[in-house]
């Protein structure tokens, strides 16, 4: 069996998972919030894009110009009004609130849409493919998503490392009280971080909506993949997350090459192996919970 092709496909799939994982990782890194509604917000963005596409008859990528800022605004408002109240030593309140949000979003989508699978389309690009050396055929769109993921992760790590906002983010994630003493407002920093995460989740949700299909309940699976990528990669490392996402993607596509029905189980098994034998992930950094 030629495993080269599934491996390349898996690497590209990893790009999609990295897009998802980046926002999850950002929210955890800055606010120590694990957003259980994360995948559902991605699906919400995909449905929002579908509505805009159908109403204005435009390309989903153009619709994203409206949807991504809208999601970012939603994230900012949600952080300032709801999530801010759940921050504290115990992770219980934020988990419970985001789990409640997840149930609300899924059922609102069921109420206004249907349980059917939906799909966004870019026309010919959906099925277009290029042939790489060694006779490997890859889809143009997955390749584009992978490149986009690398670019976005690059921009994110540049922002955290070099800009004033990035310095504030790192400071606030270490000690919000001291940052407040220095005159910055952690609440605004949290709001902006959530806005960035929600903008990312909109992009990821639309990319997933083009590459595969989505339904009101598909958010949970997206959350789980993003989480597995973060844990395999190691908490607190953006490039580790990309590595984790690629490992997860390759595990799934190679697993599918052996047994087509076992794609997801194969990914879970590799995740559990990492959890058992390399619990601090690729980056091997220890992060407080």
């Amino acid at each position, binding site marked *: 069996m030629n495993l080269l092709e599934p491996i390349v496909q898996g690497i590209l799939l990893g790009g999609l998972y990295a897009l998802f994982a980046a926002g999850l990782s950002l929210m*955890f890194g800055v606010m*120590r*919030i*694990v957003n*259980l509604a994360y995948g559902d917000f991605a699906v919400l963005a995909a449905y929002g894009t579908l509505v805009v596409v159908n109403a204005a008859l435009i390309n989903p990528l153009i619709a994203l110009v409206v949807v991504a800022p809208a999601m970012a605004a939603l994230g900012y408002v949600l952080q300032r009004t*709801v999530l801010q*109240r*759940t921050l504290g030593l*115990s*992770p*219980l*309140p*934020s*988990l*419970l*609130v985001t*789990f*409640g*949000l*997840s*149930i*609300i979003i*899924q*059922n*609102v989508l*069921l*109420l206004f849409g249907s349980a059917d699978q939906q799909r966004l389309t870019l026309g010919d690009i959906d099925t277009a493919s290029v042939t790489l050396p060694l006779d490997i055929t890859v889809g143009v769109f997955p390749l584009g998503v992978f490149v986009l993921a690398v670019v976005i992760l690059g921009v994110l790590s540049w922002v955290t490392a070099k800009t004033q906002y990035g310095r504030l983010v790192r400071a606030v994630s270490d000690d919000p009280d001291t940052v407040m003493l220095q005159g910055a407002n952690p609440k605004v920093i949290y709001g902006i971080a959530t806005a960035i995460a929600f903008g990312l989740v909109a992009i990821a949700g639309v990319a997933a909506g083009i590459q595969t299909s989505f339904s009101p309940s598909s958010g*949970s699976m997206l*959350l*789980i993949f993003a*989480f*597995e990528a*973060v*844990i395999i990669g190691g*908490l607190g490392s953006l490039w580790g997350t990309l590595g984790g996402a690629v490992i997860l993607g390759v595990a799934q596509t190679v697993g599918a090459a052996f047994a087509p029905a*076992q794609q*997801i*189980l194969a990914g*879970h*098994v590799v*995740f*559990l192996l990492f*959890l*058992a034998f390399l*619990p601090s992930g690729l980056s091997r950094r220890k992060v407080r*919970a």
Partner: protein
Amino acid sequence: MMPSFPLRAKGLEAPAYTVQRWTRMSILGTSGLGVVVVVLALLPFMVGLSVTYAMVDFFILLLLAMTWNLLAGYGGMVSVGQQAYVGIGAYAVVVFADTFSLNIVVTILLAAIVSAILAFPISFFAFRLVGGYFAIGTWVLAEVVRLIVVQFPQIGGGAGISLAATTDMPKDLRIAMSYWIALGAAVVVLVVCVWLVRSRIGLALTALRDDVTAAATSGVRVQSVRRRVFIFAAAAAGVAGALVAISTMRVQPDSVFSVQWSAFMIFIVVVGGVGTLEGPIIGAIIFWVLKQLLADYGPLYLIFLGAVGIVFVLFVRGGVWGLVSRRKRLEIFPVGYRFSRTEKDGSKPAP
């Protein structure tokens, strides 16, 4: 009647203290609950089949909520993966009752044992993660269990399987039987929960609930206490799953392994009052009544539940039980400690 024992520091003539576990309130509460259990045991003779059937659902939810409360409320383990054991328990009943033709009550015990045994290795994966990532980790583990179970066509694969062992029983007898088994299971789990919280483990758990670091510094073996609670909660969820299989006579993987089980137990505990023994009981009653009234509304009902849950987390942290007991020091179960000074002759000082 009220067991009390003086604590005296060696060689000091300091005033002695009496520690009381039972109070007048908890004696009343516990005996009142005993009366309620007796009434509940007689309920199938007094109400129609549909009510009896719906009450089985109540006990299933109560079992799940009481043990999720031990996990999350006391142990700080926010599990979103208890459906793993609901499913394991349900399938265990089908396998032991239909394939091995065992008595139905025995299969429930086996369901608890199988769930507990599987929870032991699972805990080693889950305990690598803490806080929020523990939550998603337990969810992934539940998914893995589901994906493995549906591999076996012998137990119905992805389509599910019917429980054949009880098909010959008359309907009313079958429903009454599952009612009594469910009531018995709920009482057993409640007694174990009260005993756990009263015992040394309970002291450790309460310390964990209030401050993990301080508890660990004081000599609480955090992981070992947590693992015991994790396994006990799994066994109880296994019993809940067994009851689902017996009362509905059908096991479908997408339904028994649904994350909705976790959503329901979380709602019950949050609304009732997290980290108290009384909370899950109050919450289960509220949830069950809401379910009878509103379940026909489908998605709207679930949106309502989600919104109510969020409002409680944000504004009513102690839940309904917290609101009720805030000023009046109400308690149903004798799990608290009351210190009072005793004079040298052992009598109580005048107030």
